């Protein structure tokens, strides 16, 4: 079966019970992380048709025919998305394990709410767990990204 991941078509052979998280990681897209496998950490978040979802609770087959975007599609080290650059610059990423999930969530969120309040940011990322940063600098990175987008 064929999946559309980061704009490219990938053909994969799958067991019916394969979860998207496992499929992505087995394709070498290891930026999507496994933190709990139970919907409680957000490390495995990816976008499906632009919405952030938990890939540990999504059967791969349910994502067929939809556009899947992972952290690898957001930007590369030589061509960072503004949100990635800001997470890096302001310290929104420490150990980095939660970071792909936060970026995926924040990217989708800013598309739907380009000018959020801090409280709205807090709510938007409340399905993502970070044990390192205390969220302060993550919120700041998202806020700054919104401001930058507004200026453009």
């Amino acid at each position, binding site marked *: 079966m064929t999946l559309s991941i980061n704009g490219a078509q990938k053909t994969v052979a799958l*067991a*019916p*019970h394969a*979860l998207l998280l*496992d499929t992505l990681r087995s394709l070498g897209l290891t930026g999507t992380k496994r933190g709990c*496998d*139970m*919907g*409680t950490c*957000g490390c495995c*978040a990816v976008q499906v048709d632009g*919405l*952030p*979802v*938990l890939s540990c*609770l*999504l*059967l791969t*087959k*349910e994502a067929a025919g939809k556009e899947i975007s992972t952290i690898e599609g957001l930007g590369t080290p030589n061509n960072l998305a503004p949100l990635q650059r800001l997470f890096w610059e302001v310290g929104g990423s420490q150990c980095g394990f939660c970071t792909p999930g936060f970026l995926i*969530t924040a990217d989708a969120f800013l598309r739907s709410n380009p000018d959020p309040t801090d409280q709205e940011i807090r*709510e*938007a*990322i*409340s*399905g*993502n767990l970070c044990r390192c940063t205390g969220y302060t600098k993550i919120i700041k990175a998202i806020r700054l990204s919104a401001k930058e987008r507004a200026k453009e």
Partner: protein
Amino acid sequence: MILPPFLLHRPTTVDEAVDLAALHQEEGVSFLAGGTDLLPNWKNRLNNQPHLISLQSIPSLHDVESGKIGALATLHSLLGFSPLPQGLREAIEVVASPLIRTTATIGGNLLLDTRCHFFNQSPFWRATVGSCLKAEGPVCRVVPGANSCVATFSSDLAPLLMAMDATLSFVGPQGERSLPLRTFYQQDGIRRMVLKPGEILTTISWHDDPTLLTGYAKLRIREAWDFPLLGVGCAMGLCEGYLSNLSLFLGAVDSIPIEVPTESFLGEPLTDEAIEVIAKSAYARVKPMKNVGLTPSYRKRMVPVFVRRLLMRLRGDH
């Protein structure tokens, strides 16, 4: 945490789904909506079936119109829908987390399995205590003498939609039927509802009444992820200060939502005294079990507080 193997079916019409379910009924079937309740349970080897019928690809189940919602509508999509009764919005906004609400469905929420510290555990964990009634074991671990399960029903939407007197529509092997949500749940932590085998929940509907005041209040430890430790759903009609309608349901304090009787207050003004009486009667009706977070006595004690606060808020107090 890998899933156990199963066969996945992806029908595109309700009829096809019903047929598939009937076909595999003997072997064992489950329906899949968002999967945010079912998949964690299956990973924990709870309720597993050899056949899983996904309802995702059935377009009609996603339809949303005013007062009538397809069972597969995601909680996230409903937040973008207007008009949405205020109480329903409040209830949806406090379900799980934003990342779960993008896939979690309204139907799945109403059909959510009950929860218990002895049940929602890994197979390893359960093996260390021995199984309980709900997992095909011999006894209830919470109430050792009990011959039925007292697991907690933790849906946030159910108490609110019951207060709104929503109606459920199903399609099953015997055809279509509709049922008031208020009669849907059944006092037992295992069966817990009158869903017939192979039956699909298709829509949730209610009488759209813009004058109806609705609200939801939730007790939880954290403002994200946490299931309710108490949920209060309320629908209220106020006509020049007099109650034309009042229904109140309590969630997460029993195996089904609990109704608080309010008929005697209809036609009366909603005074502080009346609120106090209602809050007290709510208190008297619940007996939370020690099978989810915080102590049962605390959760019970919060019942009148949350009821009073919600009623006052709907009345227009600040």
